[in-house]
């Protein structure tokens, strides 16, 4: 019989696990909070594209022996700007512009990385994360950028809510809608960049939208939805890391699978809006009619 306490504590006795847990919980929370705006504004595709598009930035920084995070951030901002540029006068639809820029920069990233000798293991780390390789300094950067994003969302909460719900009112109230939209994109870019090490660019979109969508199913107000999404993001990271430790599966995948399972459970069992609830209501209705 295994001691449950030892079961919980033994992974945490490793320093790399402590750092990995701390980093992924921060990322889980920050992704979920910014992800609420991504879900409500229908920007999931843009978030995914931005994540993949940072690959050339990371590769270039690696080749030039610069800072990977700085390279990633520069690439993310460039991508957001170029998508805006291609779709500015409606000649090309925005989702088409996103697709072009996204695939093009992914290809550029792969091309750059293929010149590196340890190409395949490096590419795997960028694509799917390497949470157990988070160093002391990485953790500080993740915590610092995460705090910056959360404080910005708190400070601009009413503006971000308004431009998402009713951009027309935002214009009549003379808010700088364009500037606010771009700030949100920069915050999204920052979030994606610090998620690089935990879940990787291939899976970060799940951390952005799955906890937020789960929260959306459970509550009907934005602030509680955000808090719930943050809690789901954090729990998914913890559960996922333990699963990864004991079942010896890739940590990023384990985290994403955990929050996907939570989403499916909520989708089926959620009070009022769940599938099961709907079935119960339908059968009750049939009974009363009969």
């Amino acid at each position, binding site marked *: 019989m295994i001691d449950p306490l030892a079961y919980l504590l033994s992974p945490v006795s490793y320093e790399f696990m402590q750092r990995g847990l701390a980093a992924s919980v921060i990322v889980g929370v920050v992704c979920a909070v910014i992800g609420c705006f991504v879900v409500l504004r229908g920007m999931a595709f843009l978030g995914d594209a931005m994540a993949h598009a940072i690959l050339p930035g990371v590769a270039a920084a690696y080749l030039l022996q610069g800072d990977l995070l700085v390279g990633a951030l520069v690439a993310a901002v460039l991508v957001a700007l170029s998508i805006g540029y291609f779709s500015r006068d409606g000649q090309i639809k925005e989702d088409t512009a996103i697709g072009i820029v996204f695939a093009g920069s992914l290809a550029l990233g792969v091309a750059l990385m293929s010149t590196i000798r340890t190409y395949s293991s490096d590419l795997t780390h960028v694509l799917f994360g390497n949470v157990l390789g988070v160093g002391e300094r990485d953790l500080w950067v993740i915590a610092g950028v995460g705090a910056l994003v959360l404080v910005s969302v708190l400070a601009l909460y*009413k503006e971000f809510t308004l431009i998402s719900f009713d951009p027309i009112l935002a214009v*009549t109230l003379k808010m700088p809608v364009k500037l606010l939209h771009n700030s949100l994109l920069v915050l999204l870019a920052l979030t994606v960049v610090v998620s690089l090490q935990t879940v990787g660019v291939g899976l970060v979109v799940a951390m952005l939208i799955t906890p937020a969508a789960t929260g959306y199913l459970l509550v009907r107000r934005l602030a509680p939805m955000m808090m719930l999404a943050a809690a789901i993001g954090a729990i998914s990271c913890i559960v996922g890391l333990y699963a990864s430790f004991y079942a010896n599966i890739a940590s990023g995948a384990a985290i994403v699978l955990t929050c996907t399972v939570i989403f499916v459970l909520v989708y089926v069992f959620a009070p009022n809006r769940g599938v099961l609830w709907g079935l119960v209501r339908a059968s009750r209705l049939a009974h009363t009619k009969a």
Partner: protein
Amino acid sequence: MPALEISHATLGYGGTPILSDLSVAIPPAAQVAVVGPNGAGKSTLFKALAGLASILEGTIRIYGRPLGSEEARVAYVPQRAEVDWQFPVTVLDVVLMGRYGHLGWLRWPRRTDREIAFRCLERLGIANLARHPIGELSGGQQQRVFLARALAQEPDVILLDEPFAGVDAPTQELALDLLSDLRDRGIPMLVSTHDLAQAISRFDLLMLLNRRLIAFGRPSEVVSPANLAQTFGSQALFYPNGGGLLAITDQCCPPEEVIEARGRARSRRVG
């Protein structure tokens, strides 16, 4: 001084004019029905007043202050189709958004803002729904939430874009009663509508548009076979009816402008 003074204004999107050389002066507390066929420029006029369409030529002033200045406050009540009813906000949240213009950066709604929001909800008889998500409300209740928000903005002018499109007859009647109830607040109101009969019987002033101003004034002065023919063109049928004239106009279906505007709202959101 007129509440709203539009002189020689040409309005449109991008560089394309939709409504040309419009000049009207609207007195305080006036309730104006803006009538015209699909594509006449009703929505363009409202969007320009709200700051969403461009003023290509001419000027618009609100109590003498140029439109776009900090003190010229316009409240725009959107068409129902333009609102995302699944967004996770409550009725009170929506009405409080009307107060954001008075708050500034880094400020949360204060107690006075909440009191004002509640007063506006009470005035429209839906204070009991304050905590409900907007998606749970009926069409008429949703309409009233946005009217309450317009009042909470404490605006100089209220614009209602097709408020009667897609709502049932009792709700329409209720909305019309509310409009006359709001008259004593002294806030001028512009209401765009397809319904000529309603415009004639329930509004002080009538503005007939068809890409330009056809006529503006009291219904009795404005409604003439010549003006109606110019306004509706082939979109209306006229029959001699006793001593008068029977006009049949199209009232069905949201105009194309709605769909256009919706597309624009979405592209603005992401673009």
